Structures are given as structure tokens and as C-alpha cells.
């Protein structure tokens, strides 16, 4: 742990600017300001510690060489061969699949909740979505393993193979466990996030836009298409990216249904592996420092990707709620 010097510095810096009252008015106020400043600084400190520890634990593998680590396809701890590529591939494939499935459902759901559905049904539906968000990941995994996977194996995958089997995506043995199962369960899990952010974004669309379109004789859907969706588009994109970020880091449910085999296959039916899943399975049982370091290196990759995606998503959502068109709308 670094010494708490920088907290104290932050606290002291913050004791200065209480914008609402003249400074130095009251000793109690100064103390209160300093205390709150320490708490604010603690958040930055916690985040700093997280980043520092990740870098520290992953150092052994960085000695091997970052580019080799990232581009190597082979992962075999027994012979000290550590390549991140199969996991990066699996993570990208499953989360892309998840967002492709979840986005249309979420937008439909959000439109239903904010624009179209009967007002009486709305609280019921949003309550159900809240429950969906509250269910722990491991319970989703349990359901995926014993319900979704057998259903995919017996029904969905044979059907896809017989109808769309000419695509490389739907070839090979249908075992149930694999990219498709992981992608679908992720889709269910990120649905609450994507739909609730989309819903919030839709709420920030100025009513005058919608009313204008309706007054011109548009049907409800036309008003949504002409006035609401174009305004909300960057925010919906932000919601999708936020969902993508959630899907990337989701661990337990994916670990239980992806098949856990560090290979790269074009087919969605094949078993694969993802970044969080391999960390979950191997981290407690590492023998060598390089192995531990390699897993922490994978965590660092995951961290980097989700940091970029989350920042991007926040900026996009804020863009809409601040409203680039708000001036024009008023």
C-alpha cells in the first residue's frame, strides 16, 4: 500500500473550495469538508491500488514479451506456453453474439416501456427486468448448464445446422456447450443493462420532438422513427457498448457453458474459452509464477478493453442527455 500522503493532499486541496459558503467560516465546516474530501480521494486510491496490483501480479509474463503473449495461439501451462489469443477470440465472439441478440430485444423492450406499451403493464415489465438484473451470475450458469445447453443440443443446433448449415458458423458436432450457449446466456444477462440505459436515453428525448411529429399526422411508430430514434441514437449506441462491456467481463455463467477449451474455431457450435473463464478456472491452481503472471496479464487485457468501452459508453450516453440538439429543440 502506498502511504496515505496523496489522500491527505487531496483532502487538503478540497478543504479550499466549498463553493456555496465563504471559506474559513466555521471549524466544523472545515473538518467536514476535509472528511468528505478524504472519502472522495479514497475512491481514487482504491482504483489506483487495483491498477497497481494488476500490473504487479502480471509482471512475470511481461518479462516474456507482451506482443508474443498477445498474439500466441498456444496455451499450455505445463510447458510454459502462454498465448492469450484463444481467450481474446472467445471473449470477442461471445460478447458480440450477446450484443447482436440483446440489442434488438432491449430496444424493443425499452420502446414498449417508454413509448408504446399500455401504461398499466409498464411497472410489471420493469419489475421483471429488475429481477432479471438481480439474479446472481452463478445461478444463470446453473440454468444455462442444465436447461439452455440441453435445449441447444437437442433442438436449436440441429435446426440451425439443417437450415443454415452451409455457413461456417453452423458446422461441426452439436454438443450444446460452446460459443453459442455462452453468447445466448450473456444476451439474457446484459438485457437489463442495455434496456434500462436505452429507456433512460429515450426519456431524455424532448417531448416537443415527438409531439411535433404526431401533430404533423405521424403514427406513433413513425414519430419514433422520425423524431425519437435519431435523437437517441448515440445514447442507444452507448447502451450497447455498456452491455458489451458487461458481457466481456461476465465470468461464472460463461465458464459453466462455454466448454473451456483454448481453441479458435469459426463454428459457434464449437467449445471455446474466454478471458474471465480461464482466470476463474486456473488462477487458484497455478504452480509457477509465470502461470499466475499470465493469468493476471489476461486480466489486464480484460481490464483495458472494458475501461475503453465503459468510458466510450459513458461519453455517448452523456452526449444525448446533455443533448447536442437541445438548443434546436427548444
Amino acid at each position, binding site marked *: 500500500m502506498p502511504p496515505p500522503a496523496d489522500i491527505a493532499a487531496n483532502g487538503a486541496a478540497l478543504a479550499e473550495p466549498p463553493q456555496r459558503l465563504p471559506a474559513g467560516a466555521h471549524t466544523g465546516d472545515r473538518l467536514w469538508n476535509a472528511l468528505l474530501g478524504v472519502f472522495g480521494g479514497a475512491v481514487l486510491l482504491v482504483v489506483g491500488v*487495483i491498477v497497481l496490483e494488476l500490473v504487479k501480479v502480471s509482471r512475470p509474463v511481461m518479462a516474456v514479451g507482451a506482443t508474443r503473449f498477445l498474439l500466441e495461439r498456444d496455451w499450455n501451462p505445463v510447458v510454459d506456453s502462454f498465448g492469450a489469443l484463444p481467450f481474446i477470440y472467445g471473449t470477442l465472439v461471445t460478447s458480440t453474439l450477446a450484443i447482436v441478440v440483446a440489442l434488438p430485444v432491449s430496444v424493443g423492450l425499452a420502446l414498449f416501456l417508454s413509448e408504446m406499451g399500455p401504461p398499466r403493464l409498464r411497472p410489471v415489465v420493469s419489475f421483471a427486468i429488475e429481477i432479471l438484473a438481480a439474479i446472481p451470475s452463478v445461478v444463470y450458469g446453473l440454468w444455462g448448464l442444465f436447461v439452455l445447453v440441453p435445449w441447444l443440443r437437442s433442438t436449436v443446433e440441429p435446426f440451425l445446422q439443417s437450415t443454415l448449415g452451409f455457413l461456417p458458423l453452423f458446422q461441426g458436432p452439436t454438443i450444446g456447450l460452446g460459443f453459442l450457449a455462452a453468447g445466448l446466456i450473456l444476451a439474457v444477462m446484459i438485457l437489463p443493462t442495455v434496456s434500462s440505459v436505452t429507456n433512460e436515453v429515450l426519456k431524455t428525448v424532448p417531448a416537443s420532438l415527438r409531439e411535433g411529429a404526431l401533430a404533423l399526422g405521424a403514427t406513433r411508430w413513425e414519430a419514433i422513427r422520425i423524431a425519437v430514434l435519431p435523437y437517441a441514437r448515440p445514447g442507444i449506441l452507448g447502451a450497447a457498448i455498456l452491455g458489451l462491456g458487461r458481457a466481456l467481463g461476465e465470468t461464472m455463467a460463461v465458464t459453466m457453458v462455454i466448454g473451456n477449451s483454448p481453441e479458435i474455431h469459426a463454428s459457434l457450435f464449437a467449445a471455446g474459452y474466454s478471458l474471465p473463464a480461464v482466470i476463474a478456472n486456473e488462477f*487458484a491452481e497455478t504452480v509457477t509464477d509465470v502461470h499466475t503472471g499470465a493469468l493476471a496479464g489476461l486480466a489486464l487485457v480484460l481490464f483495458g478493453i472494458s475501461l475503453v468501452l465503459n468510458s466510450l459508453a459513458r461519453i455517448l450516453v452523456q452526449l444525448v442527455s446533455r443533448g447536442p440538439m437541445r438548443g434546436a429543440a427548444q
Partner: protein
Amino acid sequence: MKSLAVRRAVNVIVTILCGAMVLVAIVPLGSLLWLVVSKGAPGLTPSFFTALPAPVGEPGGGIGNAILGTGMLVGLACLIGLPLGIGAGVFLAERGDGPFGRAVRFTAEIFSGIPSIVIGIAAYGVVVIPMRRFSALAGGLALALLMVPSLARTTEELVRLVPGTLREASLALGIPQWKTSLRIVLRTAAGGILTAALLAIARAAGETAPLLFTSLNNQYWNFRPDLPTASLTVQIFNYAISPYQDWHDKAWSAALVLLLLVGALNLAARYALRRSAAGGQT
């Protein structure tokens, strides 16, 4: 220009499609809840809550130590995470408008989306490496780190719900700012803060990934925070991926217990929020 009839028909079709999307979202939820209840309920005997796990093939056995372990982990997480998260939230609500406040808010927002497993590795680095063994403390720290960012944001939002007129009235009476914050604003927001804390606890109780290599697991009762400990979620995971039917049944029962726990915490949070909202209006 399409005819009005066609445009109306398109409108109806899209409305139906959106309704169908609601069904698509609800069906997995219904299936999951139904299966957890129907498969889990038969195993919920009194001894399931109190006994230690039985070896494969032996009848009986329970998850008593895992329930205790989850309680201990969440308790440790609360000790570290609640003061930090709530304090940071109050800071953001009361003093968060400057550049420093904006930096803290942005950081908290970005980090509430960081994968929990990544945070587990940080806890591993801070506690497990120096102590040279897995421990409940490491698991509790992981859960605490996980709590702080989102708890701070929720707390901020709920404290900001307190009407500004209350603060102004207090300041106008000559009450100093710190006392106004503590005795007027935070007291009014107490229900909201409780809501935020309960939601954070519910999330922590359902977390598995960072526990796998911090608190690990334990087949026996453990009351010491410096030793590995069992937890409900890790136990569900281990039972689910095992090849034994008996353990699969136990996984469903343990999942039902976990859902009841998380559900109760969420309901309590809703109740606290409703009470605080009512308090704020009057």
C-alpha cells in the same frame, strides 16, 4: 406516400413486435425462476441449512458452513466497503461539483463496470500474496472493492433527491453547513442510503468470480477471517460442474437459498426506498 391504412398497419405490427420482445425477455426469467424453485425446494430440509457438506454418495449433508461463510464474507465486505462507498457518495452529492468531484465521479462510473474477476486479482495481490494463503479476509476485501464505486454512485443519486429547500431553510436559520449536511440532509436521505447499502450487499452476496481465488473454499466450519472459507456461490459452482446427480440437486437447492437471500435484500431495499421517498415528500 403510402396510404393511411398501410401506415397504421405498420404501426400495429411494430407495436406487436415490441410486445414480442417483452415476451422474449420474460420467458428465460420465468423458466429460471420456475426451475430453481421446483428443483430446489425438495432439498430444503432443516439439516440442509445446518449440516456440513457430505461426501459423494453419502445421504444428507448441507450447506451450513457455506451460509455462514457468505455471511462472514459479506460482513467483512461491509466493514470495509460501506463506510468508503457511502462516504464517497456523500462527498459526490455534497461537494462533488468541482473538478476533483467530477474526476471522482467519472472514476466511480467507469469502475462500476470493471469485471469482478479483475478486482479479485487485485485483492489476491493485496492480501493473499503477503499472507501466503487464501483467506476470508481476501474474499471480503474483493467484495468491498467491488462495492465501493457503484455504492458511491447510488448513494450520491439518492442523497441528491433531498429537496434543496430543506438545506436552504436550515442554512437560513444560521445552522453551519456541516451540521446541515449531517443533521438535515443525511437524516432525510437515511432511507435512500440504506437502500443503496442493501443493494450493494445483495450484489456482493451473489458474487462468485473473485472468491474463487481469494476465499477459495472450505469443507468445514470456519470462524476465522484469516483462513479459507466456504461460500454459497462457490459451493453452487462446485456442485453444478460436478458429475454427480446428488450434487446437482444440492446445487439447485443452494441456488434457491441464494435467490431467497438476494431477493429478500432487494425487497428490503425497495421498501426502504419507498419509505424514504414518502419521507422526502412530506
